[in-house]
């Protein structure tokens, strides 16, 4: 609270840059968690902006009408305010700058957010997503894969979950040896197990790890045996793919630092494939350029298309999707297991594995399934949420839109397969906001161990049950469980022209660019009405029966 210099400013104008006549006047309030703008209009419309969602606050030179202040949010909303007094503007700026940059976890919103749940419900909520149940859904443990206690108390790898699934044939010594030969101990473990119900009966798997510590010549027989064990866990296949999601040059450069990639001569029967997804720094710059394009004042079509090209954003999205397509094809069409890694195995690897899983398994295209997938491939496997999404004031070089890209890949797939996903675009956008907002505990910290040490389950609330309760808002009206698109593997086209600018996400800087009518909302309303009609129909049909019994009157339908 000590940060708030001016809790209330009157006669503030909220500006709509594209349609100035839609600008409104109201009162601005600063609370410890939100900036709130209440319009003076009859309706007293309120706009709430969470401090933790604020990306930056910029003050423009004071002019005759007041002091302009621009609040840019991590979910790409931009609020343009005009504050009558320069002093008030400076106060708001100073307050917001401090409030939006917490330095310690304890200051995050999730620790004060209290939706009035009792202790029991809160604990139950944290059990809503259960990864053990998810592996069991995949058929794990089985005669080929089992759980290992090797990472109990995170002693093997502090950024991995404590429960790891490995080939049964891998001995404890091999597991420990392999971990020693991998960057940060992130050894190859199971991410997804594909049981094919078709005549092929493929049982290929997707495993993940970090890069091996090969340098120019080092090798580890344990690590080689580990890969051998993974390959052998797929009895019908004679080789396995190692997908290095980095550009080959980057992978080679890592050898100088004692890291690198698998030597095909040392590992029997592996095929190494580079995909060429760029690193987090390239992605961060790319997204910034994309955001800048969205903020151009009155861009011509050329400005926009040139900016889109120059940002490179869609090229990177295509690279991530291509990685997923390669892995899914290997697993589903060729029945070959795949080990995926990048450098640390927590960014590009998470993207590639989860995109492949969405393509392979219809479950991950449901609302619950996507939650499970994020919990498994991202949260449990140590994707560094707090670093990547700048939850705390920290190293700006650690920030990168890795998850944004995964969500966008799913969105691009939704454009090609409109009936394949149970959720709508709104769900993805909501997830995106929550990843940045720190309202719930799910995405706080950088790995499972850190979350345990922060006692998040006791001190914060889980997002998943909250989203699940409101799932009606996020459903895709075109989704039907018995539709052909909801079955089997998705095979998207990844030609350049198939990728679109995600207007729902990046086109939000200006209110007036928002879509006017949404077919999805319209269809959802129709479906809701149909449901009510169905109910009315069945109740009507019961009435005559009662009458029939009671009074002996016949109904001629």
């Amino acid at each position, binding site marked *: 609270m000590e940060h708030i210099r001016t809790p209330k400013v009157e006669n503030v104008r909220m500006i709509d840059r594209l349609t100035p006549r839609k600008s409104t006047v109201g009162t601005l309030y600063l609370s410890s968690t939100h900036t709130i703008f209440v319009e003076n209009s009859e309706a007293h419309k309120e706009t709430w902006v969470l401090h933790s969602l604020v990306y930056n606050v910029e003050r423009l030179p004071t002019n005759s009408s007041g002091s302009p202040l621009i609040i840019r949010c991590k979910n790409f909303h931009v609020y343009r305010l005009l504050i009558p007094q320069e002093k008030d503007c400076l106060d708001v700026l100073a307050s917001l700058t401090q409030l939006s940059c917490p330095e310690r976890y304890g200051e995050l919103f999730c620790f004060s957010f209290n939706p009035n749940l009792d202790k029991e419900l809160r604990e139950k909520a944290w059990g809503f997503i259960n990864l053990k149940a998810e592996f069991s859904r995949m058929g794990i443990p089985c005669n080929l894969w089992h759980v290992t206690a090797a990472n109990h108390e995170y002693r093997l790898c502090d950024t991995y979950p404590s429960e790891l699934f490995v080939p049964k044939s891998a001995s404890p010594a091999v597991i420990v040896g392999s971990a020693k030969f991998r960057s940060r101990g992130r050894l190859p473990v199971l991410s997804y197990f594909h049981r094919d119900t078709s005549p092929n009966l493929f049982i290929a798997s997707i495993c993940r790890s970090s890069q091996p510590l090969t340098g120019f010549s080092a090798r580890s027989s344990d690590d080689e045996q580990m890969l051998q064990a993974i390959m052998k866990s797929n009895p019908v296949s004679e080789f396995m793919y190692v997908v290095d999601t980095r550009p080959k040059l980057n992978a080679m450069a890592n050898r100088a630092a004692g890291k690198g990639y698998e030597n095909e001569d040392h590992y029997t029967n592996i095929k190494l494939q580079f995909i060429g997804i760029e690193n987090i720094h390239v992605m961060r710059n790319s997204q910034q350029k994309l955001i800048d394009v969205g903020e151009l004042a009155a861009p011509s079509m050329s400005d926009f298309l*040139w900016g889109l090209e120059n940002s490179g954003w869609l090229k990177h999205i295509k690279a991530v999707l291509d990685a997923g397509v390669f892995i899914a094809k290997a697993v589903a069409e060729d029945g070959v297991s795949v080990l995926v890694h990048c450098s640390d195995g927590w960014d590009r690897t998470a993207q590639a594995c989860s995109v492949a899983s969405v393509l392979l398994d219809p479950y991950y295209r449901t609302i619950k399934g996507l939650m499970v997938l994020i919990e498994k491939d991202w949260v449990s496997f140590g994707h560094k949420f707090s670093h990547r999404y700048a939850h705390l004031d920290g190293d700006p070089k650690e920030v990168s839109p890795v998850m944004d890209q995964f969500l966008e890949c799913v969105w691009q797939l939704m454009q090609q397969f409109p009936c394949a996903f149970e959720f709508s675009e709104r769900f993805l956008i909501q997830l995106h906001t929550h990843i940045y907002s720190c309202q719930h505990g799910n995405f706080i910290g950088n790995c499972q161990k850190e979350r345990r040490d922060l006692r998040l389950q006791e001190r914060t609330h889980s997002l998943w049950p909250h989203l699940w309760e409101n799932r009606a808002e996020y459903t895709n009206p075109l989704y039907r469980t018995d539709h052909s698109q909801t079955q089997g593997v998705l095979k998207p*086209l990844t030609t*350049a022209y198939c990728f679109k600018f995600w207007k729902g996400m990046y086109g939000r800087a200006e209110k007036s660019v928002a879509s006017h009518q949404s077919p999805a909302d319209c269809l959802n309303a129709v479906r809701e009405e149909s449901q009510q009609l169905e109910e009315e129909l069945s109740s009507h049909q019961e009435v005559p029966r009662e009458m029939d019994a009671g009074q002996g009157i016949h109904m001629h339908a």
Partner: protein
Amino acid sequence: MEFAELIKTPRVDGVVLRRPFMPTVEGTLCLTGHHLILSSRQDNTEELWLLHANIDSTEKRFVGSLGTIIVKCKDLRVIQLDIPGMEECLNIASSIEALSTLDSVSLMYPFFYRPLFEVIEDGWQSFVPEESFKDLESMTDEWRLSEVNKDFSVCPSYPSLLTVPRDIDDESLCKAASFRHGGRFPVLSYYHKKNGMVIMRAAQPLTGTNGRRCKEDEKLINATLCAGKRGYIIDTRTIAVAQQAKARGGGFEQEANYPQWRRIHKAIERSNVLQDSLIKLVEACNDQSHSMDRWLSKLEASNWQSNVKEILTTACLAAQCIDREGASVLVHGTEGTDSTLQVTSLAQIILDPACRTIRGFEVLIEREWLQAGHPFQQRCAQSAYSNGKLRSEAPVFLLFLDCVWQILRQFPCSFQFNENLLIMLFEHAYASQFGTFLGNCVAERGKLQLSQKTVSLWSWVNRPQELERFLNPLYEPNNLVIWPSVAPQSLLLWEGVFLRWNRSTKCLDEAYQEMVHIIEYNKELQNKVNSLRRQLAQLETEDSPLQTP
């Protein structure tokens, strides 16, 4: 029959048809006077029937004795025919070439086509100017229908009946016509019922370098202004282009002579530039090997989306003048047959809910494009694969349809029709069995006796069986003015046309079917519930005497 002379080899067996994203078909290729037909002679296999008029260009190549003809169509599809035998291939190629470039209009397919359906409503009689005028008369008495152009001598590209201000006599109209390019004097295009403001259209005034003026022209357009009101002249050309036009006898309205009008210049491109833009766009869309950078840079370089934006922006401006400013508008470019019509017709879609119904949209196309003298035959002679010397080809109408699609996409519930109608119109404007888009103006169509010798497109479209395909299931009549966003990120590539043949549309078609299904199921339920409610109400009234003690 002269076609026979052009067909050296009417039939070849063992021809293989290859199309992207579709299975290959092997079968017999037949050439008739108007069609290229490929049939596998098996049941359940789709046959290919391609109008020669739809063929934009062909390429042939040989590997040994196997010849390949690449046929590029005006609807943008590209097909490949593998023909065994070099001589057969050469013969087929030269026949296609000859048959697809016939010069004489009267040899076109519409003159030979006999419909397999019964014409219930003759499309040639569906839209008569007198009918539209009756509607106008019910709202205002300030306009009259003039027959000054009944023999097309005042303006060859105008129809015989024109709506003009009541107080302007025919003699003045003739004088004004002599002051406008091609005799296209200002006429009424649209009357905005809400406030009585109007859109008029014309061609450029012939001011020339010495600033000629014409009192009758000034009087004509001033007659549309209420006392003390100002109007806007939207010149679709940049000021520079308009200045240059003076040297060729054209020009623009001088402020001094039109003091009640404010002139605004916009920058809609000329026809030849638009054609070039289409060629580049389609080239970009057809290369699947493009990297993302190359694709985006080619899309940008084609300028197609920029053209869409400029046209829509100008249309919004016209609509804004009418609805927001309460001012009347006169639109013109150079000839008044291209960009002018894009602007006036799109402004009406924005302003007038009637234009967003199927019938109203047909009326709009009939009135603002066909009757208004857009030279369809010249503009649509060649499409995106035209490699020869171009004459006056330009995708002016296609751009209009693209703009309509953009608005439709932004207001998916406000149109009675769907994208299929727009795509169908694009196809038929370029190649058709119907006579509707033949000729360049009303006078030409009369000479060709199209209404007697050919079937109208509308006769076919308006059959209930066909209409169904064009109905938008999401339609909820909306009586408001709809303001489309013209921000670049709101304007998309029209995939339904430009990527139509470059991807499988199975999943998108399924989604559409799903949408139709949801809405039809809802209607079905509503009917059931309503009928049950009625029965219940009836039962209650019948029972009530029994139940009341």
